[in-house]
């Protein structure tokens, strides 16, 4: 009873704060100074069409590096916690047979989903999308594959390999910016090219491709670890 009363008081006080915030909120009518700087100078400085991509990869590249590190830590802690015995991994379960529609459709759809993922992260500097979205799309393709073949396991060594190689390359590409351009994660190592072409914006498509591979393999590892716990015996 006391607990419910305390919860009620907490929610009520939060709602008072939110009502005040809402009453004082006025919709913006123009960009603030930092966004104005980005909108005016980004096409000459970096040459990427998508402003969000240029902010994520270059202007705030450190944030993205830290974020990828957090995701890596989460994935490795999950792998450590949910480790199961090698003998359990090979065990067969008596599952209901997968329906034929799912099996056939997964054979056709999975390559197409992978192609969409690659398209999304290779065009991240031109259209909406980028490494995080493309990685998530590829991981959902892997999930479809796992649902169609429930006896198969995710090959963790392969995905860990892809993940560490792309993370390493990401940092190396960032370090190249110190020697050949003006700072860590600067994209002007390669020529900027023509604004709006696929080969433009210097290093941005390359960096975003490696981020996409890293995010995709990490998410696949997380899902694969949680799937393998289904086979564990008491």
């Amino acid at each position, binding site marked *: 009873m006391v607990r419910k009363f305390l919860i009620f008081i907490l929610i009520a006080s939060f709602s008072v704060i939110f009502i005040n915030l809402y009453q004082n909120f006025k919709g913006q009518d123009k960009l603030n100074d930092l966004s104005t700087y980005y909108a005016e100078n980004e096409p000459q400085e970096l040459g990427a069409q998508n402003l969000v991509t240029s902010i994520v990869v270059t202007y705030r590249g450190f944030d993205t590096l830290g974020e990828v590190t957090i995701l890596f830590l989460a994935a490795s802690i999950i792998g450590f916690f949910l480790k199961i015995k090698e003998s359990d991994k090979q065990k067969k379960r008596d599952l209901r047979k997968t329906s034929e529609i799912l099996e056939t459709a997964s054979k056709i759809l999975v390559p197409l989903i992978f192609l969409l993922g690659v398209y999304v992260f290779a065009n991240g500097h031109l259209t909406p*999308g980028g490494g995080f979205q493309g990685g998530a799309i590829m991981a959902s393709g892997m999930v479809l594959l796992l649902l169609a073949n429930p006896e198969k396991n995710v090959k963790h060594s392969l995905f860990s390999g892809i993940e560490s190689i792309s993370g390493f390359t990401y940092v190396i590409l960032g370090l190249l910016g110190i020697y050949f351009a003006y700072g860590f994660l600067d994209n002007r190592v390669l020529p900027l090219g023509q604004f709006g072409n696929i080969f433009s914006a210097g290093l941005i498509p390359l960096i975003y491709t490696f981020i996409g591979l890293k995010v995709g393999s990490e998410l696949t590892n997380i899902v694969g670890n949680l799937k393998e716990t289904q086979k564990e015996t008491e």
Partner: protein
Amino acid sequence: MILNITAVFLCIAILVMAVIAVIHKKLVIAIIASGVVSLFASIIFLLLAAPDVAMTEAAIGSGLTTIIFFYVLNKIRKESNG
């Protein structure tokens, strides 16, 4: 104008689904409802002129999060039964 009306309907749907996700006794229905909240939120992001965020939310929030919830739920049920 039509966008505003769409947004109002979507927001009502989101709130109803969020309440269902929190109070429903069956875990399966609660998990599906939280996935639907993410899916509708991605349409809201699209209406707020943020296509990048909408793609991420649709792929991660409603796809992968729901599937990992279901893996964990299946394992927990199996352990409880025997």
